[in-house]
């Protein structure tokens, strides 16, 4: 297949870049980080870029939502799916919990940053509440339970009068002006854009630190073989719970970063199942477990439908086709990590032991045949 060859040639390039990066000295890395940040702050949101990237919609608004929001959500889900290997199909629940916490507490008169701190705590706790009873399940079963959780949150929101039922909450608190950014301008999303860039940078730093620590090693071990991880003395349950905790917190952060849009309102239908699925697509499409890959994946998934707005609804057909082709020719994602690639080759599918463990005395037999 021609396409496949072209793509694998490109994978050679990305391998080389990764190797160069792995060997690059500290100052080079910091220089690259700085250049990227300058690019994101000063070049990306300018008119010139906008005319190429998004001729039909307001580029800065698009950069903030969906692109920024998707990247933030994908980074959060990447901790759960990419690093710990737990398939979560209800990630949007934490996004909703973050947004609703800001909305409800703001209505009670809390200052904006107070609501953010509380929202993070509430989201993280709900991660624990979801995880504690369900993380004993594996693979498909965990996916089904998390999917249910996502739906429960949305349906509860729609049917609870206190939080505005299907009308949702309007007049969400806005961040106070800072660094010359005005969050009250309904026509200009640039303040929100810079806020979400700051949030993304923060989450990247936390993700990278975690990944390089003992926690990251434990997650990798759980993802690759949970039983073996336990046999190495990794308290697997605790670490899975921690992954849910951190992931939920990032999801909640994205919820507070959304602030109900520039218009300042949220409603239950902003948090459909399809959003959970799309964010999962961002992670897998980009390269599950690899932070640059996940960011690139989220960017492309969020941006493509906006860019091809002129195709009307046909763009979604095209979008679907792109996804199908990608998964056939490059199942490991656009920019996979080396470790993830090796896992894929070994045949665990790159997402931990996705196959459910059916408890029978002969559990091992089919596994052995598979290898």
């Amino acid at each position, binding site marked *: 297949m021609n396409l496949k060859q072209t793509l694998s040639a490109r994978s050679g390039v990305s391998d080389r870049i990764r190797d160069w990066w792995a060997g690059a000295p500290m100052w080079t890395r910091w220089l690259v980080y700085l250049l990227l940040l300058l690019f994101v702050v000063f070049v990306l949101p300018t008119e010139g870029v906008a005319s190429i990237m998004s001729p039909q919609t307001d580029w800065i608004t698009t950069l903030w939502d969906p692109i920024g929001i998707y990247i933030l959500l994908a980074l959060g889900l990447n901790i759960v799916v990419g690093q710990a290997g737990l398939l979560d199909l209800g990630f949007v629940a934490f996004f909703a919990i973050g947004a609703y916490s800001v909305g409800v507490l703001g209505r009670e008169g809390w200052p904006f940053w107070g609501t953010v701190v509380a929202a993070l705590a509430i989201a993280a706790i709900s991660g624990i509440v979801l995880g504690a009873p369900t993380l004993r399940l594996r693979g498909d079963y965990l996916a089904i339970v998390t999917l249910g959780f996502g739906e429960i949150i949305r349906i509860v929101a729609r049917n609870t009068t206190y939080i505005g039922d299907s009308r949702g909450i309007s007049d969400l608190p806005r961040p106070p002006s800072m660094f010359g950014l005005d969050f009250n301008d309904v026509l200009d999303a640039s303040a929100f854009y810079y806020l979400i860039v700051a949030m993304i940078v923060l989450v990247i730093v936390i993700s990278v630190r975690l990944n390089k620590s*003992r926690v990251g*090693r*434990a997650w*990798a*071990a759980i993802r*690759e*073989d949970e*039983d*073996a*991880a*336990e*046999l*190495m*003395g*990794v*308290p*697997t349950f605790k670490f899975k719970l921690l992954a849910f905790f951190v992931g939920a917190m990032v999801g909640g952060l994205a919820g507070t970063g959304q602030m109900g849009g520039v218009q300042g309102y949220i409603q239950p239908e902003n948090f459909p199942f399809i959003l959970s699925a799309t964010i999962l697509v961002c992670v897998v499409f980009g390269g599950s477990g690899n932070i640059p890959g996940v960011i690139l994946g989220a960017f492309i998934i969020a941006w493509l439908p906006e860019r091809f707005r002129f195709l009307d609804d046909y763009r979604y057909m095209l979008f679907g086709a792109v996804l199908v082709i990608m998964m056939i020719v490059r199942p490991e994602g656009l920019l996979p990590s*080396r*470790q*993830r*690639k*090796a*896992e894929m*080759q*070994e*045949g*665990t599918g790159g997402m931990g032991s996705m196959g459910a463990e059916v*408890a*029978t*005395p*002969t559990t*091992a*037999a089919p*596994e*052995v045949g598979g*290898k």
Partner: protein
Amino acid sequence: MLLEIEDIHVHYGKIEALKGVSLQVDEGEIVTLIGANGAGKSTTLKTISGLRPLTSGRITFDGKDISKVPGHKRVLLGIGQSPEGRGIFPGMTVEENLHMGAYARKGDLTKDMAEVYDLFPRLGERKKQAGGTMSGGEQQMLAIGRALMTKPKVLLLDEPSMGLAPMLIQQIFKIIEEINRRGTTVLVVEQNAQQALSLAHRAYVIETGKVVKSAPAAELLTDPEVRAAYLGGDLAVDEAANDTAVDTTPRNGQD
């Protein structure tokens, strides 16, 4: 007695996989548990290492009741397991796999790493290779090496011969003997009864969740019932009688 299992029952849902298994492992021994596919060998090991909860019965290790201790804490007590189907970390390099073995303990690892590389020179040649890209035999070596990195008092091996060529099986079994000689107690579960009985001091035979026989391994090698069920009948009588630890007979059994 280093490890003592008394009348353990283990259920998978409603199915009773172990119906009262008892066995003992003394310090310095090599003990083997043989039996057919599905008899409960792996379940027994998993229950000892804490991957499976037991319904009733008792596991005592080093004089301490560990029946309710979670798996990751049993590692610290000195129970190291090389899991079934090798179960290495495919995306990690050989070196990273071995480091995972020492996850639960602190301190300098260079000496322990050197010891593993000394037992398995093959692993030393492939430190930077991803575990998942190695051959079956190498993965088995890595799984055993990784278990050794936990500094076990008793090493549990789940079918080390599975899916390997006869030459490699011999090599692995020789190394197991060497590990034991260096002072680690070994409990090995095997379908390959011939090899396992030649290696072990004592043996247990498990059938559908129950221990049906226990005796010194050499006795079982000549036991007519065991021969009929696990050693391919009488065809190999003479060979088996003259058997030493280094065995050239191809494997019997079904795997």
